[in-house]
């Protein structure tokens, strides 16, 4: 088996670093527990911080033992990826940006290198420099792993928040017996349209609604995709036995719809939510009249 000179030289250093991390794991963990990253995450007990420090040191030792000091995919990191992710996420929640988290990870390097230097009788010997350099590379890789974990945790958080925002942003309101409405505010994309459709249809079942009003007064633009979503919602509501009314089409949007050549012909529209409600009520035989006219209306009702 032929090993290149470089590898032959390097591997012993990596093993050395690995052995050091194993041997000094307790001291390293104790020092790290006081570092900003650990201290601010494990606010309740220091023991937890030390425990986390031990886990990270053990993971680094495993990576060093595999000789893959600069490989963020090294299997040793898998053991701590979850934990790092949770720590990074918790720092992100308290308002520390990814840069800040990365700096806090970088700060872990100094205590470890100090301990490593102390291992050597002559801190300036080439072997010592080599070992410190190897540890520096390893700590740099750890920093990358944390960065990567932070970013993906952040993406998940954003995705979850987006979903929640969709839900919150689309309340279905019962306006009257058998009449529900969704006032849409903001941009309608595919994902949100899907949520709107599902919440509206669920509300139709829950409220036994005959009429469902989609009010788009607060929707800034209607392109052909949005129009298509509206039409799908109307069609789905109809399949369930409810009539859908689209209200709040502002003049500019009406123009756009005409320009785009979108045929909303099958969709019942009203200019305002009030008009839509009035329509739904009149279809159900409910008449709205000023109080003074009630007598007259009652007379009319006896016919």
């Amino acid at each position: 088996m032929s090993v290149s000179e470089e590898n032959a030289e390097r591997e012993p250093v990596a093993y050395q670093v690995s052995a050091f991390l194993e041997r000094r794991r307790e001291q390293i963990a104790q020092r790290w527990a006081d570092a900003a990253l650990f201290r601010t995450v494990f606010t309740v007990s220091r023991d937890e911080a030390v425990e986390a420090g031990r886990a990270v040191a053990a993971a680094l030792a495993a990576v060093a033992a595999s000789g893959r000091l600069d490989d963020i995919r090294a299997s040793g990191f898998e053991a701590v990826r979850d934990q790092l992710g949770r720590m990074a996420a918790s720092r992100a929640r308290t308002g520390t940006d990814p840069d800040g988290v990365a700096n806090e990870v970088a700060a872990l390097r100094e205590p470890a290198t100090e301990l490593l230097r102390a291992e050597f009788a002559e801190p300036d010997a080439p072997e010592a420099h080599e070992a410190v350099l190897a540890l520096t590379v390893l700590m740099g890789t750890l920093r990358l792993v944390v960065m990567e974990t932070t970013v993906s945790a952040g993406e998940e958080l954003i995705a979850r928040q987006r979903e929640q925002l969709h839900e919150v942003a689309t309340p279905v309101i019962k306006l009257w017996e058998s009449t529900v409405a969704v006032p849409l505010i903001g941009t309608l994309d595919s994902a949100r349209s899907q949520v709107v459709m599902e919440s509206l249809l669920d509300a139709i079942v829950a409220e036994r609604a005959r009429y469902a009003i989609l009010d788009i007064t607060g929707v800034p633009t209607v392109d052909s995709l949005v129009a298509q979503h509206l039409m799908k919602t109307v069609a789905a509501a109809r399949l369930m036995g409810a009539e859908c009314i689209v209200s709040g089409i502002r003049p500019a949007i009406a123009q756009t719809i005409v320009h785009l050549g979108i045929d909303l012909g099958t969709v019942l529209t009203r200019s305002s939510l009030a008009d839509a409600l009035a329509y739904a009520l009149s279809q159900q035989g409910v008449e709205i009249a000023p109080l003074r006219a009630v007598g007259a209306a009652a007379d009319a009702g006896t016919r």
Partner: protein
Amino acid sequence: MMQASRHAGPASLPIGSDADLAWVRQQVRQAAAELGFGLVQQTKLVTAASELARNTLVHGGGGHVQITPLDAGSSRGLRLAFVDTGPGIRDLDQALTDGYTSGGGLGLGLSGAKRLVQEFEVDSRPGEGTTVTVTAWATVVPPSRTVP
């Protein structure tokens, strides 16, 4: 021919009769539910599976479906491959057009199924057969909360 294994690995189901179509629908629903698909997503995928399995049966003269759960880190998916050794599809573009039908349906089989899944692929060779592969991914559903 019963499918003994109901674990999360790939499974192959025969498509040779009406009853098989029903069985395919049930198995696809179960697999999708296990992977965390929401109710609407499940319904879309099962409907697509029903359309495609019927195509395999009616146009392909029977065949089988391969059901494969997918795990791509944070997202989970289900891949269905419908395989037949029938006459193949002569004009794929036409077959994917709404309303085009060679059988007794509404001509929404292929084109409709395509709209119900995220990924859709047809490999058809005249005289040799057709394989339609579809994939759907479960989107992360937030825990449902009741808005007061």
